[in-house]
């Protein structure tokens, strides 16, 4: 790859992000600016912003890598990422907006009227956020190594520094417009090279995938277990369940709903998100398939996750290929930066507000200002996943993201769905659901990430835990709630009115209970 082009593209993306962040600082001095701005954001722009933040390293690089290495069954990943928003739309989009909650812990506390549930949710937000940040940093390391040959820690560090500078300065996040632009930037960066590559492929007479004779059939067929997957049927269903139910519980998703003026706009926004994601996800598999055509054997030292970046030069040698690679590298960095910024903002906000502020105040004798506390939280939010990215062997970008979805689906999905629709949910039941789902899913994730490949059923069950952890979490929450009817929050009926009635009725909507 031409290092100069690639580095130029990455530096441009980083500088733009920082520049817009600094500019945004002037636009959004106080949080209330953000709230006011929220009233004027149209569903279309809001949806672009959600797409811009949601399309991460897993979408930009990971899907193509998975399709390249494991074949057709991996198409369930982009399908699941999209379907997750349909489920979110149908079950919680409007109630979440109407709850007036700004973060998941806010929702948990408002619905269940318990500060302990809030603390539990905060811990989970931090855990899921860190798990989701990990592949963003790993992806950045991979991408920069493909472009410059630098060791992987350099690329991760670049993202860490840009995001910390950006988030700690207070920019980026609050500006819906920037995230909205990010979506169109990423779509262009992945679509234009894809069209060029497809044109070349057509001109070459549509050559088929190059695989060794026995495996060609398996790669292109569903449920073949190609790429060393045991129990592909179970894995397919479990992945689909995790992605479909996990989306609503991701820490950086709910915040964006707050910028919708009302529940109806929240639904329309989600509808547009489904359209935008569907459009984007047409392209990553193209790279996976063409990778099998033009790069049947990965060059030494290249991971499957880098196939998107390596492909253009294999298809069109010369400066056109180099330019296309640079465009893709820039798009990939835009993906790392926007997703990492959104996640860091959410994690840092929760760390600061719920976990650090009181303790920090005691330690420093109330010397620390609010801003200092938030900056400290930002650094902490990034340093932990950075350290983990150094020590944990990458198991595939989309796979790691899939695990974050599994944890979110096993914890926040029952909380949000039961909390929105079932008056019988008790505080104890919700807590029991969060703890059981969280412990089981996080345990499975830790074993998968630390113990290396496990074969047979244990490997499949631990590697794709959602199919058993989500039902267990739901059951525990329901059974414990039924056993503890006395602990149903006192104002449940009032909360339900707020969550489900249209705003145009002018009902009492204050979050304070009378």
């Amino acid at each position, binding site marked *: 790859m031409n290092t100069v082009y690639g580095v130029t593209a990455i530096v441009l993306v980083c500088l733009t992000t920082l520049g817009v962040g600094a500019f945004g600082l002037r636009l959004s001095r106080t949080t209330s600016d953000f709230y006011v701005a929220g009233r004027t954001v149209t569903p279309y722009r809001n949806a672009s912003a959600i797409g811009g933040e949601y399309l991460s390293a897993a979408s930009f690089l990971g899907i193509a890598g998975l399709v390249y290495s494991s074949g*057709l069954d991996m*198409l*369930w990943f982009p*399908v699941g990422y*999209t*379907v997750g*928003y*349909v*489920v979110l*739309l*149908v*079950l919680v989009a*409007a109630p979440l907006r109407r709850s007036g909650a700004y973060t998941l812990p806010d929702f948990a506390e408002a619905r269940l009227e318990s500060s302990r549930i809030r603390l539990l949710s905060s811990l989970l937000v931090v855990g899921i956020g860190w798990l989701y940040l990990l592949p963003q940093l790993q992806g950045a390391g991979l991408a920069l190594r493909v472009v410059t040959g630098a060791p992987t820690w350099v690329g991760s560090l670049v993202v860490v520094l840009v995001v910390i500078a950006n988030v700690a300065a207070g920019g980026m996040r609050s500006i819906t417009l920037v995230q909205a632009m990010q979506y169109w930037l990423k779509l262009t960066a992945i679509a234009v090279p894809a069209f060029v590559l497809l044109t070349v492929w057509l001109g070459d007479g549509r050559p088929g995938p190059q695989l060794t004779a026995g495996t060609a059939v398996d790669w*292109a*067929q*569903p*449920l073949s277990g190609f790429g060393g997957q045991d129990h592909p*049927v179970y894995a*397919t*269903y479990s992945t*689909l369940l995790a992605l479909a139910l996990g989306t609503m519980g991701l820490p950086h998703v709910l915040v964006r709903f707050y910028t919708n003026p009302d529940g*109806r706009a929240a*639904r*329309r926004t*989600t*509808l547009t998100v*489904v*359209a935008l*994601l*569907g*459009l984007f*996800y*047409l392209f990553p*598999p193209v790279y996976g398939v063409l990778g099998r055509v033009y790069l049947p054997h990965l060059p030494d030292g290249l991971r499957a996750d880098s196939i998107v970046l390596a492909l253009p030069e294999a298809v069109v040698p010369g400066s056109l290929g180099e330019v296309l690679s640079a465009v893709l590298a820039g798009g990939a960095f835009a993906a790392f930066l926007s997703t990492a910024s959104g996640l860091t903002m959410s994690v840092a906000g929760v760390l600061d507000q719920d976990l650090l502020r009181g303790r920090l105040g005691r330690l420093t004798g109330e010397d620390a200002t609010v801003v200092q506390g938030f900056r400290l939280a930002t650094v902490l939010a990034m340093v932990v996943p950075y350290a983990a990215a150094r020590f944990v062997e990458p198991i595939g970008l989309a796979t790691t993201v899939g695990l974050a979805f599994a944890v979110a689906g096993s914890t926040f999905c029952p909380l949000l769905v039961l909390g929105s*629709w079932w008056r019988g949910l008790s505080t104890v039941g919700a807590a029991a659901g969060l703890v059981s789902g969280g412990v089981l899913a996080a345990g499975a994730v830790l074993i998968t990430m630390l113990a290396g490949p496990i074969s047979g059923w244990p490997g499949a069950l631990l590697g794709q835990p959602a199919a058993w952890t989500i039902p267990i979490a739901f059951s525990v929450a329901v059974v414990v709630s039924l056993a503890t009817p006395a602990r149903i929050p006192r104002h449940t*009926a*009032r909360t*339900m*009115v707020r969550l*489900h*009635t*249209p705003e*145009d*009725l*002018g*009902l*009492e909507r204050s979050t304070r209970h009378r």
Partner: protein
Amino acid sequence: MTPGRTAEGADHPDRLARPPRVRVTSSRRGAATRRDLRPLTRDLDEQTDLGEVYMAGLMSAQLRLASRVLIFGALGLGGLPLLFLLVPDTRTLEVVGLPFPWLVLGVLVYPVALLVARYYVRQSERIEREFSQVVGRR
């Protein structure tokens, strides 16, 4: 003059000669008293039994709609691996020159998801519109 008082007046022996008046006031009763009714929104706010009934109606209508959409999605998407498993021919089937599984999972899923989502948004807005009309019409 309230309808109640007119009705009493009609019963008075001196006024027996004016029966039509009774009919007129009784037909106006609904319109006249309507203005004095508490708005239903207050029943919702104060969580009276009536308000609870309306809320339960709204929520169950929305939940039925959501279940319909989710069951459609679960059968449609969840049925695909089952189809591939039970009818192996579908794994290699070619449709317009493309392998069927690639066509479905790579392309067709997305417009269908969008149509389903659009159906849901329209229906749920209709449910809310009707709810607002019943509850909020004053």
